[in-house]
């Protein structure tokens, strides 16, 4: 099974068109293996992206360097997955 330990989901707020373009640049960096749940669109609309653990530092540095604000929406994706699994096992037992 794929392991998502340490993966975070960031909610990015691009304030203007220039920042939207910067996030689009991020989208093109294939080696970061970003999974955009809600892609960059227009200024003001939030962008949600799952960031694998090895890429977190690079992504946050990139965002901070360009003064793009973000928050951590999901701290650890794997812990959510574990909760879902536990819930499913519990229901199976029942």
């Amino acid at each position, binding site marked *: *099974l794929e392991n998502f330990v340490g993966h975070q989901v960031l909610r990015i707020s691009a304030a203007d068109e220039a920042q939207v373009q910067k996030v689009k640049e991020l989208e093109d960096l294939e080696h970061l293996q970003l999974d955009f749940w*809600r892609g960059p*669109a227009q200024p003001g*609309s939030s962008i*949600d992206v*799952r960031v694998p653990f090895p890429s977190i530092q690079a992504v946050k540095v990139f965002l901070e360097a360009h003064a793009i604000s973000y928050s951590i929406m999901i701290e650890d994706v794997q812990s959510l997955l574990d909760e879902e699994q536990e819930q499913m096992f519990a229901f199976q037992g029942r």
Partner: protein
Amino acid sequence: ARSTNTFNYAIYHTLDEIYEFMDMLVAENPQLVSKLQIGNTYEGRPIYVLKFSTGGNKRPAIWIDTGIHSREWVTQASGTWFAKKITEDYGQDPKITAILSNMDIFLEIVTNPDGFAFTHSTNRLWRKTRSRTAGSSCIGVDPNRNWDAAFGMPGASGNPCTETYRGKYANSETEVKSIVDFVKDHGNIKGFISIHSYSQLLLYPYGYTNTPNPDQQELDQLAKEAVTALSSLHGTKYTYGSIYTTIYQASGNTIDWTYSQGIKYSYTFELRDTGRYGFLLPASQIIPTAQETWLALVTIMDHVKNHPY
């Protein structure tokens, strides 16, 4: 479960369980429900559609699909609930009875079976199909970028390693082609509703351009009514509008193609979750999600029935 009455709609189920559910529903309602196989997936799984019909041949019809993006589990779970709800409401609820007296409903509960099976066995957050691309080690195509509607334009990726990879050519994915063939062969589908999850939106064409579609005013008004009905149950907040203006540019998407085929009432939903859970919406929210969405679906289906074209 031994029947669709004892089936637990409040938990997530595997593909096999959902397929067994379909068989039970057909067996219990032979006069109303039948199961059609419209194709096979890349990995050879059957692709099934439930047909709800009270008779007639190629009546005007409404299409509903759930789960084209495999990780959006609340959609497949909601689709299962919708199927049962249709059988319960026919003959009881005046609107559903009237809709089914005039029209057929087609419901594809698992639109991307390979991807769905993969999310249960290997990678819970898989979104795409499981087809291979020659010359690339990356697997899968985003089936919501693979339709023949501005295929290859901005709003989709040409890189097989991205989540929004559009595929080599339009309809390259058998999961998409099967629906295309079915819709064209049927020729009388009047409403097409593709259900996704995450971010609480009700969207209409276009996705590839910010030019308003010719029916924008009517589609917008109907979206408003549907969202109002949806929100009335649990207060869930929805946004509505065209794909392009509401979320982002997306070329090659499902409802741009259906709209281009003359299916005026083409909509796509994004069900519950503002982001707190991503695609891991707790099972306890399945039934509330399905219930509220149902109210919007009935609003749209009722309008389609009342506005023949």
